[in-house]
């Protein structure tokens, strides 16, 4: 098993997902399968390949600092379930 239950628990916690014991079992297996599959990339000889920060051969894609019209607020928040005073309303965030 290349992924441990503990790792899955930790990742689930970071992703704010609550997993049952059953699900934990299931995802540990399937995530391990995925990682194992990805591991097969290690068989490729990359000794002559430069490490890259981006998959495309592009650089310096810049935008001019020019104002564009923003979106209509109503339009933008069409899919927000709860709105109040021009804002999206969410359950209280405890600091």
């Amino acid at each position, binding site marked *: 098993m290349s992924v441990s239950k503990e790792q899955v628990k*930790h990742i689930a*916690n*970071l992703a*704010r997902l609550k997993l049952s014991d059953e699900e934990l079992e299931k995802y540990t297996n399937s995530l391990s399968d995925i990682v194992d599959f990805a591991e097969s990339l290690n068989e490729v000889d990359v000794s002559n390949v430069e490490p890259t*920060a*981006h*998959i*495309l051969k*592009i*650089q*310096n*894609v*810049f*935008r*001019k*600092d*020019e*104002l*564009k*019209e*923003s*979106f209509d*607020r109503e339009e*933008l*928040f069409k899919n927000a379930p*709860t709105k*109040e*005073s*021009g*804002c*999206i*309303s*969410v*359950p*209280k*965030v*405890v*600091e």
Partner: protein
Amino acid sequence: MKNYEVVIGLEVHAELSTKTKMYCGCSAAFGSDPNTHCCPICTGMPGVLPVLNGKAVEYAVKAGLATNCEIARFSKQDRKNYFYPDLPKAYQTSQYDLPLCKNGYIEFKVGDTQKRVGITRIHIEEDAGKLIHDAYTGDTLVDMNRCAVPLIEIVSEPDMRSAEEAINYMQTLKSILEYLEISDCKMQEGSLRCDVNLSIRPIGQKEFGTRTETKNLNSFKSIQRAIEFEIQRQIDEIEAGRQIFQETRRWDDDKGYGYAMRSKEDAHDYRYFPEPDLAPIVLSDEYINEIKKELPEMPHIKKQRYMSEFNLPEYDSEQITSSKEVAGYFEKAVSICNNPKAVANWIMGDFAKMLNESDITVNESKILPENLAKLIMLTDNQTISSAIAKKVFIDMFETGKNAQDIVNEKGLVQITDEGAIKQIVERIVSENAQSVADYKAGKDKAIGFLVGQIMKESKGKANPQVVNKLLLEVLNK
């Protein structure tokens, strides 16, 4: 504090004064109706493509050059993942292992000694939105106008050893950013704020103690107080035989109290990875040299120039050049009245006090630099006395009228006519026999009283030198 040394490093966030946000054309201006500076890109809608604002890169490079950093020829952006309602994308686009600038330093005075603080790195990243507590429903309201406003984060080395050094560092940094005109540095609006990393260790110990991080301080006063509080707290913990935990803390400036934040167990597990939607940043020597050429005269250079060109004392030069706005005001006034020391005295004295009381800056005041210069010229050519000048100044500050008009309207022109002054002197002397007797008995204080009476009688308009001269003549007759 005798037995401990404090070790401080600062992470300073400065919002860049670009017109638009980091990855979209929405306005980056402060203080508009909630969620009116938003679009699908800055609110993290799926499927959008961000494009980096070139101005933000330019500004960050300026900051790097002005703080003696190496500018990266190759740099990239990364995603910093965490969940919070003020971050609609659920990741902040930042820079992880290849920041735009690194290995710099700034220098400043602490008391009489020159202090150098290392700059570990400066990177670009985006700001988060604002959360507002809705007192009516008890819910939290999300305003995304600040989402993706461009920021630079300036990380210092743990080189500071006191609250005073940290404050001076912050002031120096603020003045550098203001000079570069890359951030408006309005701390009360949150466009300049800092996190304080602090630990203590017994004097002589080499290893650092465990550090805490106090987040989001946005005034010099709160930085100072939060540091003092945290030093004392750590000393108390250690003296009581307890351990310091590495934790994130908040400072409540109203209560004067710092406390540890909850839910720290996942802290610092941000799962950084390269941002696939944004291309690497590759800067040429030409690009960097071009920016270097545009850098303005920096505060420490300007200070030296004020000392040599205007003959100002070091203290005055330091005070005036610490703000670009004040320095600009100063130079404008001096170019008209050609009396640098007088301009400096006004700016650092009464003017500073009144600005402070009204909580405005020099350029926000009603007194234009040319008006201050006029006032100084009226004093220099003896049209008004310096005592009257102070009154005229208050009037100017309140009404914005020019000095000459106030002097004319209120008839404040100084009396230098010896005949007229002598009449007043003789009358006061004859009305105050006791003081005259005191003076003759060797009590020099009596002179001050008599001068005061004469000035009062002349409504402050008599030339003080002439008054002194004539009074002594009359008394010693």
